[in-house]
């Protein structure tokens, strides 16, 4: 999908416009049908206000992530896709490691694609659901930045209601 040939564009209906999205991280370009790209509210606003040139630069999103986003948009732009198919396709798109998911959720947020934002957020939430805080730290690779006193205070704030329950 990285390079839709020019003749393919001409072969289809002449009104069918395409847009080129370019990842500013690794300069990868994606040619997509306009109606696919317009699922992104950000891009739609750009197009509507005539700010979009031939090539729309997409900052902070890598080609790898952009490909996933476009895959999602293509699936959801297909009017004949059943709800079940879409669900399956979405599950396939978000079946990634946590770092990819974070990049994806950032991309969905930047491009303002509500559906993608939801499924990705849900997936991230699922990955930390029911886990103790030590495991959450490990998953996200974050350091404990509490001082022992602070940690005890945060603990105390919650413990009396949630722990020690028989």
């Amino acid at each position, binding site marked *: 999908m990285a390079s839709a040939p020019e003749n393919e564009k001409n072969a289809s209906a002449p009104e069918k416009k395409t847009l080129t999205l370019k990842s500013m991280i690794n300069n990868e370009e994606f040619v997509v049908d306009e109606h696919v790209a317009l699922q992104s509210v950000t891009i739609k606003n750009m197009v509507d206000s005539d700010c979009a040139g031939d090539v729309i630069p997409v900052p902070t999103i890598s080609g790898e992530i952009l490909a996933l986003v476009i895959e999602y948009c293509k699936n959801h732009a297909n009017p004949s896709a059943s709800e079940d198919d879409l669900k399956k396709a979405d599950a396939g798109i978000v079946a990634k490691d946590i770092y990819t998911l*974070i990049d994806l*959720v*950032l991309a969905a*947020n930047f491009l303002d694609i509500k559906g993608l*934002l*939801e499924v990705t*957020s*849900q997936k*991230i*939430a*699922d990955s*930390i*659901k*029911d*886990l*103790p*805080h030590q495991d*959450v*730290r490990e998953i*996200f*690779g*974050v*350091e*404990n*930045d*509490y001082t022992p006193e*602070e*940690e005890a*205070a*945060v*603990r105390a*704030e*919650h413990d*009396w*209601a*949630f722990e020690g*329950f*028989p």
Partner: protein
Amino acid sequence: MTLSDNENETLAHYLEFEVLSEVSDQVWIFFNFDSYFNNSHAHIYMFVCMCIDWVNFVVAGRGGGGERSEEAEGGVVSNDWGNSSDGRGIRATPRSTETGFFSQIPPELFHHILKFLSSEDLVSCSLVCRLLNFAASDESLWRRLYCMRWGLLPPTEKLRESAWKKLYIQNTFLLRRDEEDMVEFVRNCPSEFKEYYIQMQAAKRSQSPLPSQTGQVHVCDDTCREAVLDPTNELLVCTISGHCFDRLLSPAEMETDTEQQQGGVSDEAEPFMGSGRFAQAYMLGYNCADEKELQAALRFC
């Protein structure tokens, strides 16, 4: 009867907020259940489940008798991601530069992710680091969890203004104290049922929002928690969809019903005799959304 007096006291603790008069009559019915069923452990257990579910139900329904317009305006679960800026910051402002990986994530994204989590998960997140504590203390998250678990709104204006997280924790605590009293109250209840019962409450604490409850869509079906009692015609009306639910049974009607069922139970062959019977009672009791379902479930126990 003394049982009901005791129990009313217990409830008064839990419902410290407001008038009890309208509740006490209705709750009393369940104490009569106890005397009907006192030969069967399963029934005693069911009775405890029902009390809690009923209390939740009543509180949800009471959330706002008489103040509907206000609730319809601002009290609904949906539609309100915008208010996260006020009331935040229960403690600790984030030092995002120190949390590396998270620093690239804008705060509104945390909200999108955390809205899928239960109160226990949020508490767990709070312990991870400062930034996540800040994000997981977001008032709108706790407000939604509060509404999910206890119905629409806390009953008084004063409570409504307080921090939702604090309110949630407070209520959990009150409920827990209440549960302990209740378990104490059903002294004959053997320990294995106590265990089921405790598990059931723990399950409620760790309940996280369903996808249908997280977005801006309100699904108005039998499990609708947005319904409030319209005092003029005693109908339960959903504040979002306007859907009307069946009228609540009056205490007199319910008593008749119970007696009929009592007769029915002894006549019928018991469908869950033998292994799995208690599990069935547990499942039935727990899954009941309202008093109607409970009554239906009773037929099978």
